[in-house]
C-alpha cells in the first residue's frame, strides 16, 4: 500500500504540484524600477497637438528627448525640497537652498544647488545645463590623465575635453560612454542592493552598476541616504593598492577616469605627494581610532574591500579584505555632485577643527 502511495505521489501529485507552482510564477523578469510608463515617457512628443517634452526647468520643449523621455536628467532629478521629484526620482539638484548636505537635507551625492549659484564653481561639478563652464578650469578637469586609467570608457578621444561635463556619456559620469545618449539607458535594467557583477566593457552593465556608474561596484542604500545613519547607508567599493588601476570597479577608479593624476602620482607610500586613495586605512596609530571608535562616519565614510548584502556600522581599520574593512576613497572627503564647501568637500577644510580630516587623523 505504501509503495502505491509513493508511486502516486511521484507520478501524479508531484508533477501537478510543480506544474501549479510554475503557472503561478510569472514568465517575465521585471526591472527594479516600477511605475506608470507615461510618468516618464511620451511616445510621439504630442498631446492634443502640443509637445509633451519639457526642458529641465519644466517649460515646454518643442523637440523630443532621446529614449522618448518627457524630460532630461536634470528635469527628472531636480525639485525644490525633499528627497524625490514629482517624477519620483531622487533629487540631486534642489532648486531651493537645502541648507547643507547630509541626511534630511540632500542625498548621498550632495547637491548641485551651490555650483548652480553665481560664483559657485568650486562647490560642485559644473555639469552642462546646471552650471556654466568653470571659469578657471575650462572644460578639462583638474588632474586629467587618460593614461592613469587604461581602458577607461570616459573621454577616450585623443582630442581631449572639447565640451562641458555632462551627467552621462563620454564626457559624463553615469552610463555608457560609447555614444553619449546611451548613458540614459539603464533605469529599466537597474539592479539594487549589493552590486558586484558589472563590467566596464559592457553597456548592459549600466543597470547592474552602482548608481549607473559603469563597472563600479557597491551597495545602494534604497533611500539614497536621505535617512542615513551609521548603520544604514551606501557602501562604496575600494581595494588596498590600486595605483595602476588594474581593478576597475572601485569608486576611486571612477574618479580617476577624469582626475588620474590625483591617483597615479601619489608617491606610493609615505611621505605622500598627494593624498592616497584605494589604500587601507591603517589599523595602527591615530587611524585605529577612526571616528573615535564610533563606527561608520557619514561625514568621512570609508570604502569596503568587500561588498556585503547590507550596510554596516562597523569599521575595522587595517582590515583590507572584509565588508567591515576600511579603504580610503575620494568620497571619504568629497561629495560626488556638489556641496556647500569649496572643492566639493564634505566639510569646511579651512576650519577642520570638528569632524572632517580628523575622523581619520584623530590625533592631528
Amino acid at each position, binding site marked *: 500500500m505504501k509503495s502505491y502511495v509513493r508511486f502516486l505521489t511521484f507520478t501524479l501529485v508531484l508533477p501537478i504540484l510543480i506544474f501549479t507552482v510554475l503557472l503561478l510564477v510569472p514568465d517575465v*523578469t521585471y526591472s527594479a524600477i*516600477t511605475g506608470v510608463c507615461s510618468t516618464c515617457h511620451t511616445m510621439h512628443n504630442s498631446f492634443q*497637438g502640443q509637445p509633451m517634452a519639457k526642458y529641465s526647468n519644466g517649460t515646454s520643449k518643442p*523637440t523630443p528627448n*532621446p*529614449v522618448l523621455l518627457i524630460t532630461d536628467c536634470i528635469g527628472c532629478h531636480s525639485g525644490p525640497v525633499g528627497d524625490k521629484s514629482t517624477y519620483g526620482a531622487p533629487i540631486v539638484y534642489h532648486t531651493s537652498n537645502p541648507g547643507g548636505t547630509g541626511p534630511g537635507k540632500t542625498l548621498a551625492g550632495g547637491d548641485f544647488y551651490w555650483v548652480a549659484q553665481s560664483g559657485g564653481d568650486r562647490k560642485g561639478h559644473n555639469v552642462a545645463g546646471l552650471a556654466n563652464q568653470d571659469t578657471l578650469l575650462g572644460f578639462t578637469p583638474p588632474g586629467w590623465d587618460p593614461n592613469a586609467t587604461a581602458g577607461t570608457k570616459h573621454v577616450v578621444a585623443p582630442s581631449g575635453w572639447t565640451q562641458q561635463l555632462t551627467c552621462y556619456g563620454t564626457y559624463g559620469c553615469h552610463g555608457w560612454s560609447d555614444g553619449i545618449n546611451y548613458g540614459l539607458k539603464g533605469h529599466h535594467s537597474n539592479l539594487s542592493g549589493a552590486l558586484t557583477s558589472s563590467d566596464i566593457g559592457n553597456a548592459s552593465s549600466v543597470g547592474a552598476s552602482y548608481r549607473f556608474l559603469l563597472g563600479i561596484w557597491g551597495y545602494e542604500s534604497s533611500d539614497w541616504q536621505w535617512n542615513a545613519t551609521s548603520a544604514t547607508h551606501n557602501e562604496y567599493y575600494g581595494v588596498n593598492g590600486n595605483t595602476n588601476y588594474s581593478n576597475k570597479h572601485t569608486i576611486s577608479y571612477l574618479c580617476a577616469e577624469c582626475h588620474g593624476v590625483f591617483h597615479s602620482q601619489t608617491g606610493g607610500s609615505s611621505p605622500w605627494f598627494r593624498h592616497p586613495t584605494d589604500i587601507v586605512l591603517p589599523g595602527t596609530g591615530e587611524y585605529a581610532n577612526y571616528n573615535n571608535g564610533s563606527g561608520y562616519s557619514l561625514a568621512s565614510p570609508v570604502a569596503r574591500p568587500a561588498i556585503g548584502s547590507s550596510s554596516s556600522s562597523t569599521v575595522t581599520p587595517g582590515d583590507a579584505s572584509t565588508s567591515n574593512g576600511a579603504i580610503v576613497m575620494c568620497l571619504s572627503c568629497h561629495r560626488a555632485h556638489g556641496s556647500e564647501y569649496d572643492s566639493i568637500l564634505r566639510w569646511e577644510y579651512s576650519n577642520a577643527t570638528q569632524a572632517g580630516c580628523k575622523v581619520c587623523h584623530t590625533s592631528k
Partner: protein
Amino acid sequence: MWLWLLVMILLVLPLRVHAITSSLCSNCHTMHNSFQGSSMTNGTSSAQPLLLKYTCLGCHGMGGSQKIAYIGDIPVPQVLHTDPSGDLAGGNFAYITGAKQGNGTNPNRFGHNVIELGEAFRETAFGNDPPGHVHSFYGVDVRKYLSCAGYMGCHGDKRYYDAPQGTAAIKGAHHNNLNGKIDPPGTANPPGYYYRFLQGVKGYEISDWQNLDSTHHNEYYGSTSAPVNYGSFCENCHTSSGGVLARYGTISNFCATCHGNFHQQSTVGTSSPWLRHPTDVVIPNTGEFGNYTVYDPSVPVGRTYVPSSPSSTVTPGQDVVTCLSCHYAHAGPYPSMLRWNYSNVEAGRGSVSGCKVCHRNK
C-alpha cells in the same frame, strides 16, 4: 467535335466577371431618389453621389446593437454601434459619440473626429493641422474636413488634388473590391484594389473584419525601410498631381501621410535611442522583445510580406511595429485611440499587456 466542346464550355462560363458585392442593386442605390414622391435616401433628404441611398455612416455607422448589420442580404461592417460583444478591428466611433462609454473624460481623444459624426463631435483641440503634421495644410482647418473618405479622409482615392470627399471618393470600390490577400501591383489601381480601400495599402483582409484571437485577424503590411528610413521627401506622401498616396504600401506609411513627424527619420531617429516611438521597424529578436512569439490581437504586428492567411506566430527579427500595434484606426475606448489604457501600464509590475507585450521586461 472540338468546336462543339468549345461552345459548351463558353455556355457554362459566365458571360462577364461579376462584382465582388453581389446583391440587389436596389439595396444600395436609388435611381432618382424618389419613391412615390418621397426621398429614398437614409438619414438625409438630399440625393447622394453614385446614386447611393446612404452616406458612409448610413451604411457603416447605423448605431445599432450589432457590429455587423444587414442591408437586405448584405452583411455590412459597423464602425459605429453599441454591440456589447466587442468592436471590429478598426474600433468604434461610438466611443466618441458616447453611445459606448470610454475610459476618460474627453471623448474627442478616443478617435478620429470625422465630420460625418456631426458638428457636435468636431475636434476642438489642435490647430488647423493634424498632430504630427510635417507641414501646414495651407491654412485649411482639417478639423472641418476630416472625412471617412477622400482628399482629407482615409479611404478612397485621393491621389489628385481636389479629389472628392466622402462616398464619391470610393467610386467603384465596393464593386471591384478584392479580399483576402491584398497585394496589387503598383499604386495606380482604383481604391477597391487596396486594403480596406486605403489607396496604396497592402495587407490581408479577414473576411469578418474582426481581430478575434491569435489565429483570426487581419494582417497588416509593414516594412523595415519605409517610412522612417526614407527621410523627408515629398514623394513619401504625395503624388506629382498634388494628391496624397502611401507610396510604400505599409499601413504606417499611410498614417504618416497625415502624421508625418511621428514617422520620418529626422523627427523619430533611425536607431535607439529613439526620439519618438518608431514604426515600420523590425521588432528585435534580442532581449525582452524576443519573447513576443504568439500573435496578440490587442498588440498586432506588421509583416514584411503580404500573407495569404493569418498567422498566430510572431517572429521577432522579422515582423515589424506598426501604428496599429498601439492605436485603433477609427476610435477606441482609451485616450489617444490607444488599444489599452496607457496611464495604467506600469513598469516593474503588473501583467504582460499593452506596452509590455513587446517591452516584456520593463
